[in-house]
């Protein structure tokens, strides 16, 4: 990557990152975050980690950001109204930030010049290498992870599906058929609980 391209992208990343925290409208912040993530993905690709770059673009900039957007819509978050905030809290934040910046500067001042970058082998970071590792040395971990995700989905559905006591009409067919019967509620037993606590 040429120096001017790096400079351009780095500036873009920093500006959009600033945009994330300076925007008042959460949707605008989100858009700025997408730009930051995409630029980071370009960096990954330029460094030879092609797979990670694309995963970054697809998963972070794509899937997770859509999820964010859904949450913002669900909660109906409006543009934030700036509050005065607590003075002590603000000054503490400023102090902490100043300390961090001082630390960074001190470290940057003392750090030795970076060594020449080692060119990774052409296979490094490709999907083929990743797949070979996943399906050989980490085969069991890979399979166990897929089961783990299945467990999480089953669990989330089991807890979040419609309460069985309501006659479900609009629920998904599976949930509707399992929970088609009425349900009498067990008494909360609040008093007994207080007694035994």
């Amino acid at each position: 990557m040429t120096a001017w391209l790096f400079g351009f992208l780095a500036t873009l990343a920093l500006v959009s990152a600033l945009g994330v925290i300076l925007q008042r409208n959460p949707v605008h912040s989100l858009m700025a975050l997408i730009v930051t993530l995409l630029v980071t993905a370009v960096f990954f690709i330029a460094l030879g980690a092609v797979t990670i770059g694309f995963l970054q673009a697809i998963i972070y900039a794509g899937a997770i950001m859509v999820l964010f957007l859904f949450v913002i819509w669900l909660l109906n978050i409006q543009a934030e109204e700036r509050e005065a905030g607590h003075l002590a809290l603000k000054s503490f934040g400023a102090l902490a930030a100043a300390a961090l910046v001082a630390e960074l500067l001190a470290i940057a001042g003392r750090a030795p010049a970076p060594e020449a970058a080692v060119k990774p082998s052409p296979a490094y970071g490709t999907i083929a290498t990743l797949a070979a590792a996943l399906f050989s040395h980490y085969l069991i971990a890979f399979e166990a992870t897929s089961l783990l995700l299945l467990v999480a989905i089953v669990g989330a559905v089991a807890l979040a599906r419609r309460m069985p006591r309501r006659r479900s009409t609009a629920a998904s067919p599976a949930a509707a058929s399992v929970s088609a019967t009425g349900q009498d509620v067990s008494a909360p037993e609040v008093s007994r609980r207080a007694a035994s606590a």
Partner: protein
Amino acid sequence: MNHFNPGALDILWLPLVPLIVVAVGAVVVLLAGVRVSDDDSEGLGWIALAFLGAALLFTLPLIGQSSSTAFAGAIAIDNYAAYFEITVILTAAVTVLMSLEYAPDFRLAGAEYYSLLLFAALGMMLMAAAGDLIVIFLGLETMSIAVYVLSGLMRQDPRSNEAAMKYFVLGAFSTGFLLYGIALVYGATDTIKLGPIAAALAGAKGGSPLLLAGLGLLLVGFGFKVAAVPFHMWTPDVYEGAPTPVTAFMAVGIKLGAFAAFLRIFLVYFGAAATHWNQVLWVIAALTMTTGNLVALVQGNIKRMLAYSAIAHAGYVLVGMTAAGAQAGSAVLFYLLAYAFTNLGAFSVVAALERRGERRDAIADYRGLALSHPGLAALMVVFLLSLTGVPPLAGFVGKFYVFSAALNAGYVWLTIIAVLNSVVSAYYYLSVVVVMYMTEGEARPIAVQAQPGMVAALALSLIGTVMIGVYPGPYMGAASSAFKSALSHTQVSSRQLKLRG
């Protein structure tokens, strides 16, 4: 590793067949349950039971094989894994038997209930067979996430909601500790495989702060899962709120799974470097026993009492771990087996007395039980006596082996604390007996019919508790051969290291 070379891989599916059978069973139960109403989930339980039985059969050929590894060290094949797998399968089977009537009675969502139960068992078995830290972590998470959900399946009951929420938040927190510990260990040793990590710990890098910090965090992570003091705060609330069979499964299964990995890492692989961790464990063991037993004294709810008793028993296991060495390892494995049957039995009695909309889990509810249900009361006495450690029951033999291992290793004071704690525990266990036999009048009359599932669960627990206690020889033999087979991994790997070095 640029080229995919399947010939160089040691892919052996055979030792994983029990796990695969359990996983398939979980999916089959889930699919079969699509059209089954919650009132009618008994059939699903029988399907789950059939798969557990098949898994048990497939575990048997694994016994007695020489220790080896598969999948580039991710899976350990040894008697140790088989020992824990069999115990976990039996625990899951007793839990299913206990639930056959309980689940429809409390209208737990049948398909999800039995499926998650099997998935949790799968996680425990994976932890028992794991040979590297990633697989241990994945097994732990599979087990934990399934049980978080199981403990919240009584969704109309606020206590169950509270249990699931507390367990989930604190469990996720503790998982963070474990994962951070794994990351630090990986950072210090450049490997996730237990053998090379043990070699690094015993070698020149042994004192590296990074590695020791990683070990400390691993200790905290496992401490949460086995409910050791000071990481036990979630236990009583979660045990109380969860459906009773799930509580039984938590008290026994999670301890089995977590201890299987905990013991394999610390006692088996890091045993040679025990000086790095067993002083810490000494303190944790003493605190766990004492806190568990003292707080159990004042509980008015039987599930909370058994929760604190479970904490105390984790303390006894930790006494064995502190002692380290082959004798202690076998004793601890035996203790876990004895504890499993005894605790399953005690919780079965609690579950048998509960009816929908009416949780009978206050100790006062057991008044006059000896007159109204003499059989259940007598069974409860047997299980409580075994938990106390009265001969000739399983609990006594387990404690005897663990305490004598600790004495032989020179931990006199820890053994004295443990014995004193056992004496204290007799008070609260026997006070339940007093309530059942010597208090007049039934608190709230109930009619318990003999239901086949519950009878089978009680019978299995009773047989286990009595048989292990009366004739411990074969079980102790199995425990000691299991521990030796796990130890032989470390000898092989150190020999290889010597050859290479």
